[in-house]
Structure formats: structure tokens, C-alpha cells
């Protein structure tokens, strides 16, 4: 993954360039307002950079120099939002299967059963999202994103709305998703503990600029 982005928003200007290995977890770390969420929104195609390029797993998702700008539905990214954003009118099963049509090409590398077992959500399949706890919702959100067969998982502070005990429960699930399925993860957080547990590839941001990468 190679990302170079420039975007002016309000008084702040995002100007970053980073690359990461194909299968690991890369963390974007920094205080609120540092531009972390804006960066993954740009990678997902939900915000447009003024200039730059995004190259993931052999595909250009965005390249201002060549006029490439794939819409979000063509980018093959799995996005886990801070509050899960499960579709309230669909059951857990319906949510999990929403992105499955992307798998019809036959390059299906994860099965429904595998994910359901991995995330321990078999008993929730027929329930509606508003009957789930915060941790359960996020596990379903992970499953939904993974089952859409993405080239990369983007996680925008996925544990921010959970209490500490729930956070500790969830971290192993994220590690498992990455290690067993080999899907790279771009993980946004302002919690040092989460980042230290999950990854040693950290990009530290302040005011839209990278101050350290290790």
C-alpha cells in the first residue's frame, strides 16, 4: 500500500505520504483533529483529496496526475465505522451478506461460516442490530466488512464507543482477522494501548502531518 495525499480542509491542511507492508496492521495515531479519519475517508473514496495517489494491492484507487478516482463501491475496501453503522432494518445475517455480491467473481477467500465462527456471532444471526450490545455490533461490523472480500480493511476508531473491558475483548478479534485471513488493516485510533497491542507499524500524525513513522 502506498498513499500520498494532500487536502485543504478549513484552516488545516493534510499532507501525508506513507507506505506499509502488504498484510500487516498499520496504525494511524494522533490526537483528535490530527486528520486520521480524513485520511481513511480519502482512502475509502468518501472524501476527495486535492492531490495525491492511493495504490493498494496492485490497483490505483486514486491518482490525481492521471485523473483516476474510483468511486467507493469500486475500491474494494472494507470500512468499519466508529459506531458500527449496521443497517437497522436488516438482520445480522442480512448485514453480513450485504457486501457478498462482490464475491461473485470466484476469488472468494473467506467463507461466511468461517467469519461467523471467528467472530463468535453464530447465535446473533437472526437478531436485529438494535438488540445487540456495543461489542456485538462491532463484531458484526467487522464481519460485514470482511465478507465483502476487501483488499484492505479500514477501521476508524472501531472500539472508541466501548468500555475498557469490552475493548480488551475485541482486540484479539482484530488480530485474528488480520492473521488468519491475511487482510491488511489501516487502523485509526487515539488510544496508545490499542495500538501497542495490535501493531508495531505506527504512523503518528499531528495537524495533518506525519511527525513520526515506525
Amino acid at each position, binding site marked *: 500500500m502506498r498513499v500520498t495525499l494532500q487536502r485543504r480542509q478549513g484552516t488545516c491542511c493534510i499532507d501525508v505520504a506513507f507506505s506499509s507492508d502488504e498484510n500487516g496492521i498499520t496504525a494511524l495515531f494522533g490526537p483528535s483533529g490530527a486528520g486520521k479519519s480524513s485520511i481513511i475517508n480519502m482512502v*475509502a*473514496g*468518501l472524501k476527495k483529496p486535492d492531490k495525491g495517489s492511493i495504490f493498494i494491492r496492485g490497483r490505483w484507487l486514486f491518482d490525481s496526475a492521471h485523473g483516476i478516482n474510483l*468511486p*467507493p*463501491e*469500486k*475500491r*474494494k*475496501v*472494507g*470500512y468499519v*465505522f466508529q459506531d458500527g*453503522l449496521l*443497517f*437497522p*432494518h436488516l438482520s445480522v445475517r442480512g448485514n453480513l451478506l*450485504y*457486501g457478498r*455480491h*462482490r464475491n461473485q467473481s470466484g476469488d472468494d477467500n473467506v467463507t461466511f461460516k468461517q467469519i461467523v465462527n471467528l467472530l463468535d456471532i453464530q447465535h446473533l444471526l437472526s*437478531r*436485529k*442490530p*438494535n*438488540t445487540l450490545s456495543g461489542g456485538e455490533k462491532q463484531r458484526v461490523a467487522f464481519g*460485514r*466488512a470482511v465478507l*465483502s472480500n476487501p483488499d484492505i480493511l*479500514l477501521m476508524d476508531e472501531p472500539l472508541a464507543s466501548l468500555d475498557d473491558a469490552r475493548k480488551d475483548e475485541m482486540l484479539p478479534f482484530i488480530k485474528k482477522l488480520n492473521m488468519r485471513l491475511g487482510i491488511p488493516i489501516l487502523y485509526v485510533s487515539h488510544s496508545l494501548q490499542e495500538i501497542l497491542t495490535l501493531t508495531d507499524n505506527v504512523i503518528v500524525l499531528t495537524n495533518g502531518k506525519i511527525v513520526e513513522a515506525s
Partner: protein
Amino acid sequence: MPSPLSPVEMDALLLSLKVAFWAVLCSLPFGVMLAWVLTRLDFPGKSLLDGLLHLPLVLPPVVIGYLLLVALGRNGLIGKMLHEYLGISIAFTWKGAVAASAIMAFPLLVRTVRLSLDAVDTRLEMAARTLGAGSWRVFCTITLPLSIPGIVAGMVLAFARSLGEFGATITFVSNIPGQTQTLPLALYSMTQVPNGEAAAMRLCCIAIVIALLALMGANLLETYFRRHVEG
């Protein structure tokens, strides 16, 4: 048991229900589409479109009826083409009453649908797009199901408004018993003839009952769909 309504009154009642039904059905796709355009898109001339849409709410209904006559009458711009090429005549028929009712109820329909589209969290639509859904699939599988309660409310409101339509209808399709005489027009006719008070009162009571049933039905349906949507 003999019907408490005379044949003329029964005709007017059935015609009113038929006109209101078709008016809502025909205007619904356009109403939902326009509401979506106004809530989700930004484009030059949006406020003009919004203003035009609300005109039937503020213009005298007779003006709308007259404009319809000018446009869709046998010698009107569109009416002439419809008659020559398709053999369809709208003025002075029940189809004309449908057109008049649909146009008068349209702003109410769009306003209500718009409110429900506004209430749908657009981040859910973004989430669907990151899962590979294009705009049309997002609309059909996320936006539309989540705004169903508001759409149902809008339909019932438009239905009730269509039942009460008077000014545009009488101007455009006149007041022909059995053909274009809807319930309000029949009631008006009864007030113009000697000894028509009893019939007028009967029609008046029917109008009130139908309107009340429609509003209660709207509430029930809205609650049902909201529960269904939210689980």
C-alpha cells in the same frame, strides 16, 4: 337493506376513491424521485425547482385547473398531441380529475417523503457504498426501506388531500354526475338545489369519516413500518 345513499351520491363516493387512488399511485414514483433529488443533490436552480413544486400549495386551485385546461385541454399544447397521436382525451374525464388531484396533492407528498429521506443517516448510505453497492442499489436497499414509514404517511396525506380536491377539478373537468362529479363536487351541487340539505349532510359525514379513517390508518401503518424497520 336499501343503501342510505342515492345512486348519484354513491357514484360520487366511488369516483372520489378511484380518483384519489390513481392520483397517489401515479404521483408516487415522481414524488419519491423528486424528494430524493432535493435532499441528496446540489445543483443550480434547486431553489427554483423547490419553489415550483410548492406552487400548488399557495396558488388558488382554480389557477391550477385553468392551467391544466390550457395545457391538457383538447386544444391545449399537450392535450392536442395526446388526442391526435394517442387518441387520449383528459379534459372533462375522470382521468383529468386524477391529474388535477395529483398536482394539488404533490407538494404534500414530496414534503413528507423529503422529511423521511432527511431522517435517513447518510453515513449508512456511505457504509453501503464501501460494501460495493452502487447508487441505485443503495437507494433500493437502504434509503427506500428506511424511509418507508414517511412514504406511507405521505401517500395517505396525498390520498386525503385528493379526496378533498375541488377548485382545480371543477375548473378542469367540470362537474358531470357519474363522470367527473367527485364527492366534494356532489356536495357542492347538493347545496345548490332545493331540499338538498339532507344529501349534503350525508356526503359531509362520509367525507369526515373517510378523512378520519385515512389519518388513523396512516398512523397505524407508520407505526407498523417503523417497528418493522427498527426491529
